[in-house]
């Protein structure tokens, strides 16, 4: 099954670090999530990485078996 991964404060908002979801287009998957969480995930400053590579647009992205889609809020590290 594909997984969504939530980094930084998104983990707190989601209440979990990872979520296993059904395969399918990302837009459809997000529509099944809690609305408040979905709004945070779609925030302008949140970046996305599919299997460890940044993607600039989720349009047309379909998650398949074993895919990992990470949501990366602004970094504040080091």
């Amino acid at each position, binding site marked *: 099954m594909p997984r969504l991964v939530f*980094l930084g404060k998104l983990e707190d908002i989601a209440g979990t670090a990872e979520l296993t979801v059904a395969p399918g287009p990302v837009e459809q998957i997000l529509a099944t999530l809690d609305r408040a969480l979905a709004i945070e995930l779609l925030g302008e400053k949140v970046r996305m990485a599919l*299997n*460890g590579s940044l993607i600039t647009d989720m349009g047309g992205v379909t998650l398949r078996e074993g895919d990992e889609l*990470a949501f990366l809020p*602004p*970094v504040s590290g*080091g």
Partner: protein
Amino acid sequence: MADVRLETALDPVAEIAAFNARYATSGGIVTFLGQVREGGGVEALELKHYGPMTLPGMTDLARITQLRWPLDGLLIVHRHGVMHPGDPIVLVAAAARHRRDAFAAADFAMDHLKSESWFWKREKTATGWRWIEPRPEDHEDLERWR
């Protein structure tokens, strides 16, 4: 040539001793050690990373740093996990024939580690844990290199 690591523990003196021994005939070695500051009521901080991206990003930063300045050697070690005031967080060391190259490379690597590496920081005070937002200075620091 670069030694880049993401660790749960960091012994800065042992790392610096090994680095200095390895580059004993480089003209100059600059090291930066970042530590958990005391103050502001911070009891602990936690740095979280993202396995598939954080270390690859640090390795890429090391590669770019070495392309930009002629270095004999470069070390980047960054911790993740829970840390307390006085604990080391990050160590960068750059060895070069010429002093200015070592200074610039360590400075550049630190600015980019702080602002572009995939780490998320939260701090614990008496009121609990709080996620830290990026600071405007981080962005300004990066602009210096553009």
